[in-house]
């Protein structure tokens, strides 16, 4: 047994290393693609910075020289890669600020929002999804299915403004905008945005969980366990939850990765200065260093989330661990 467990870990570690290598390759490809796409985008960042009237040829030339925009494409890309490998992502063309500083100023808001919404999603979607799936066609199921349909169809910005109007303006329980300082204040500020973001996510994960639970509910082992009078808590925890976990984990991971890349609409409605808001401004201004660094960063976040989800598969599903050893 001990040897088998050891081999299992070696296999999983090998899997992780292979995935990490793939991540590096994907990041390299993404960086080149983004760099190329930005180079192909019409418009000159120097002109955008100055505004058309102020953009005299001399002024444009000075700014282009300052940011190395006149170098050949491959030279620019090489310089960027070399600097990036040293942790230097350059300065923003719009503000002159270090790009890494700009991202670190904003990453907190995005992680908070994504994390808070994720916790709400998991706490609400999984239990209700399981119940709906196990009690297919009954009142609980019909309620959960109907409300998730409504939640999926409601546009994010409309939900956001509705919540803001009710809970910030009429009831005055929560602030209408901003991100707050310190843990409790941030929690208070982030509640409405997180609920707004979570509403559509809950719908997605709930439906996935329901489908997975329905699949499990019909299995012979559940019927058999019930016949054996296994306590129902044990049936729920050991049998249903465990066996439904893979699709749930997959959808939850996707949802988290999505909101970590910046929930642009929610950030806009609640005036949160997160990564999504920064990306929108930077793309509009062709602020190349910022867009480039942000893309890298969000690609890294998404890839890492996926890797963690994949590794969790092993933790949740013994069949995969055994398959890994056998392979």
């Amino acid at each position, binding site marked *: 047994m001990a040897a088998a467990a050891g081999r299992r870990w070696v296999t999983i570690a090998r899997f992780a290393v292979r995935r990490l290598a793939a991540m590096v390759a994907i990041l390299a490809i993404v960086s080149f693609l983004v760099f190329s796409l930005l180079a192909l985008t019409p418009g000159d960042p120097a002109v955008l910075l100055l505004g058309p009237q*102020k953009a005299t040829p001399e002024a444009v030339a000075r700014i282009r020289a300052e940011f190395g925009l006149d170098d050949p494409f491959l030279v620019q890309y090489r310089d960027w890669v070399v600097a990036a490998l040293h942790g230097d992502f350059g300065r923003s063309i719009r503000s002159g600020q270090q790009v890494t500083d700009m991202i670190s100023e904003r990453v907190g808001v995005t992680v908070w929002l994504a994390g808070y919404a994720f916790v709400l999603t998991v706490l609400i979607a999984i239990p209700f999804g399981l119940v709906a799936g196990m009690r297919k066609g009954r009142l609980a199921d019909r309620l959960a299915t109907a409300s998730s349909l409504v939640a999926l169809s409601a546009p994010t910005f409309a939900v956001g403004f509705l919540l803001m109007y009710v809970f910030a303006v009429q009831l005055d329980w929560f602030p209408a905008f901003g991100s707050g300082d310190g843990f409790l204040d941030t929690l208070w500020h982030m509640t409405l945005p997180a609920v707004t973001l979570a509403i559509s996510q809950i719908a997605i994960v709930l439906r996935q969980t329901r489908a997975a639970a329905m699949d499990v509910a019909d299995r012979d082992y559940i019927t058999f366990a019930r016949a054996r009078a296994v306590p129902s808590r044990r049936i729920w925890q050991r049998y249903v939850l465990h066996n439904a976990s893979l699709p749930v984990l997959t959808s939850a991971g996707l949802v988290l990765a999505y909101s970590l890349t910046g929930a642009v609409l929610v950030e806009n409605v609640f005036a949160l200065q997160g990564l999504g808001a920064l990306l929108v401004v930077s793309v*509009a201004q062709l602020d190349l260093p910022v867009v480039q660094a942000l893309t890298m960063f969000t690609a890294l976040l998404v890839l890492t989330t996926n890797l963690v989800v994949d590794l969790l598969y092993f933790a949740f599903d013994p069949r995969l661990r055994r398959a890994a050893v056998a392979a």
Partner: protein
Amino acid sequence: MGTMSRRSAIAVALAFTLAAAGCGSDKATSTSGGTGNTAAGVEIDKMVWAIQSPPGSMDIAKAGDVPTQRVQTAAFDRLLTTDNTGAVQPWIASKFENPDPLTWVFTLRDDVKFWDGTPLTSDDVAYSIARHTGDSTSIQAFLFALVTDVTATDASTVTVTLSAADPTLPAKLAIFAQIHQKKYDEEAGDALGGPDKPGMGTGPYSITSFSSADGATLTRNDNYWAGKPKVKTLEFKAIGDPDTARLAMSSGEIDGFFDVPLIATRQWDELDNATMTYVQGAYNDMLSMDTTRAPFDDVNVRVAMAHLIDRDGLLGPLFNNRATTAFTIVPAIQFTSSLGDAGATQLYEGLTPFPEFSIDKAKEALAKSASPDGFSVDLAVDTSQPWMSPLAQNLAENAEKVGITINVKQVSAADWGAGLSDPDASPVQLVALGAGTAWPNELPSFMLGTNGGFNIAKYGNPEIDAFMDKANASATLDDLMPPLTDALQMTTDDLPYLPLFDEQVATALSNKFVWEGGYSYWALGQAWPLQLGGAG
């Protein structure tokens, strides 16, 4: 100045780009009057302003869009100030003189100190202007391109030398030449204007914290030379969506919002804890047609286009009637403040009236043109400026009736701005320009004539060039008005630009506060927080 909340940085940059002197013929020399604190109202702890995008940098050499400048101008003094009529007045300089057209001499006050207590020197002032001149990478360098030398002549005098006369210099200094401490800037290096080294100034507020993500917190300068402001802490928070700002205003989380979108003012008017102020802005919207490219090289086509625009009918749907139809490409406020209401009316009455809205007359004009059967053309609309898309759709609908196909293209603010200076872009463009001062030649100087630097319609011929050369060389209103009037007369006949609307500027202020003298379009040229106080 951005009148549209969603106006992007680019539109806003366009808007305040060129500043011209607000001083009339007799104002080249002024001396300081009383400069005491004018704020009414009572002391109050905190005021929160929402701005439409986070401030980019506290250094105006790096970022100068309007939301950023709102914060910068609360912290950094300028040499001169603009009053509520747009005229330039003394400020840090107690006196400014123009002994000859190429020389400006500024005499400095002796009681001005930086936030750290060190006195302001003439070296600091000379440095603060010179940093935007010559080979500087300052994004304001274009404004000061005529400046050849800035010298601290003695401890209280700074002399600016020009390569050509520039009557607009004082107004540009009042808005853009923010006074910095030279030593601080040199030590800060590249970090200047960022969160760690925001800058060292002499203004009514010092910068307590600034972040390009969260906005800024300013603290009152208790030793301010013009008297301490009434509001102790001034906070700026970025709220991009005006609907969010309205709800935040309604719940009392913000106390003020600049540049409320005119289309949304009806909802803002209903706020019971805030008051809306509407003032005339120096904003002019127009349609530009490239006079060198077919089919718009034919004046009959341009006249037909003018007949197709229902300017009066669109004022309500586009602006809640918070705008008026424009007479010329010069923002109306520039004429009313420099010539007076009667003078402006007299000028307008002398000009050819704008072609009336009439499909039949459009057909007639088109029939006389080289493209009697119509043509097809693209028209880009900036989705961040709410008036553009409905106007273009309305125009396209009318144009279809005479055989002209207008393909309306929704584009980003950046692409719209880029299209204005792109020779390969569509020959028809919607343009929104704003002025920084009351000098009526501010926009014509670069929009008309072969030498115009931003002549989108490429409108130049020997006759208009001669008028514009004279207008551009004028240093006084008396010299300016005859050639400018001729140039505008030619423009209303030839219609390279169809003047559309003069927009108002809407500002929301919480009822807990008062703005002494009222919000003015020229606030960016002022130490504006001095006018704020608690309603008490």
